[in-house]
């Protein structure tokens, strides 16, 4: 009986560690809820973007050789497109599918997949880095986004390129956006081919963005419409992307 009343040293140390840790942790969590503190932390993103742009505005992502490629390229996020229209296009091998280009452009376009395949192509073997920490190396082919944007001719007010997608993630439409620096980067392509074959559905058929100097969630899959905009405000959650809206992920994902 009396033995139970005595706190063992182990319990004491444990209580101490967990207690201090708990206090510290709940303190950190509380601090993070403070809007001022949080905005100070989040301003790190601006610093990342400014420093990365200052040091390598037009730098090319590293390209690899066939021997460096991942044996299996992991698919992530949505594995399939949503809606009857998408499934119909999938069944038809996207023969009647076309990519819409609109918003702040002089000449709105609807480009059939066959036409995208006939534009000058870029082929690149690059490393795909997921925000979670894993990487996979694969080969991508498609026209440069710059080429498509030049065909549609951006209006001077256009600042952002938004990618609307045919997939729903947890019931919400996926979308992403990049600025013009990345949009006109030579390695930014609209890939319809992966590892030498037409894009599989799990990798975003028929068309996926490759924006090589940023993390995986920026590489929108199932791209159906490209919209040029002056601002990201008023579009879905206003932060320029699905994960940016839903999970407070950084819009600039070069880090």
């Amino acid at each position, binding site marked *: 009986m009396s033995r139970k009343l005595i706190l063992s040293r182990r319990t004491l140390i444990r209580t101490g560690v967990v207690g201090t840790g708990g206090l510290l942790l709940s303190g950190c969590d509380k601090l*993070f809820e403070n809007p001022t503190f949080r905005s100070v*932390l989040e301003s*790190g993103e601006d610093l990342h973007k400014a420093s990365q742009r200052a040091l*390598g505005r037009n730098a090319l*992502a*590293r390209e690899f050789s066939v021997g460096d490629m991942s044996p*299996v390229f992991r698919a992530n996020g949505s594995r399939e497109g949503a809606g009857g229209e998408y499934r119909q296009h999938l069944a038809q091998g996207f023969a009647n599918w076309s990519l819409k280009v609109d918003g702040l452009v002089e000449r709105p376009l609807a480009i059939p997949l066959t036409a995208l395949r006939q534009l000058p192509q870029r082929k690149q073997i690059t490393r795909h880095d997921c925000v979670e*920490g894993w990487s996979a190396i694969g080969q991508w082919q498609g026209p440069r986004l710059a080429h498509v944007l030049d065909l549609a001719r951006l209006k001077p007010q256009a600042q952002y390129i938004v990618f609307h997608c045919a997939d729903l993630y947890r019931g919400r439409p996926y979308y992403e956006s990049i600025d013009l620096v990345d949009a006109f980067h030579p390695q930014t392509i609209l890939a319809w081919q992966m590892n030498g074959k037409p894009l599989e559905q799990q990798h975003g058929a028929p068309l996926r963005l490759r924006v090589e100097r940023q993390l995986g969630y920026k590489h929108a899959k199932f791209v159906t419409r490209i919209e040029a905009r002056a601002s990201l405000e008023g579009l879905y959650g206003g932060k320029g992307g699905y994960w940016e809206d839903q999970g407070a992920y950084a819009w600039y994902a*070069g880090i």
Partner: protein
Amino acid sequence: MASDASPEAAQGGDLVRRHRLSTRIWHWINAVTLLVMLMSGLMIFNAHPRLYWGEYGANFDRPWLKIGTLQNTRTGEYSGFLQVGDERIDTTGVLGLWQDSNGRQQRYAFPSWATIPSRYSLAGARIWHLAFAWVLALGLLAYLVRSLVNGHLRRDIHITRREWSPRHLWHDVNQHARLRFPKGAAALRYNALQKLAYAGVLFVLLPLMIVTGLAMSPGTDAWAPIVTELFGGRQSARSVHFICAFLLVVFFVVHMVMVVLAGPINEVRSMITGKYRLPKEKGQ
């Protein structure tokens, strides 16, 4: 005796100036920063609790380290494990399977008491980690420049040729193992083991943390590919990042043990006010 007595003339029992203001400020900013970096880093690790060597590495590839959860096919019970190479250790309760503060079973790699934020949030952890990374990097740079200018590195950290000799090192190891710490004015000088530990942290571990961190950035990899290539690829850099973080934790534990053994109040005071009471010599 005045606190500003010249160190040579000081003897056991005297209160003397020990740590410079720049050292003290950096020490405490760094202590907070490293703790935040470690705990938010463990949360980031939770998003993909596997480490690989090479350029790529994902679920279909073979990790050299993995933390996970297993279900026993017979009993249906879950357990947590840490796997290094082919060795698997049961870590139920700590890694891979643990109870949160509400008593609910969780299967993330590191438990909530070790992570920032305490509840799973990769986005939140990245915000903490990448903001404090600037504090760590700029703080280290400022401290190293200041210490170079004021002679701290040359006077206190520089390891002399005599100290590098195996005999001298062995002597220091012996003294440490017997918990014989220098007394009197001799306590003001770092011995070879201390110098090695501090130099290792200042010039090897902290810079490696920063460089391997940068090596994981797809942006940096474009303008400075050598940083990633130096480590043999992005996933290798991620592994080295994790190993160096582990070594910093080891340093922290040894550092704490040494502070406690050497007299915690005197040691902590010296890092706050800069004043240190010299340990009394034998027969004094």
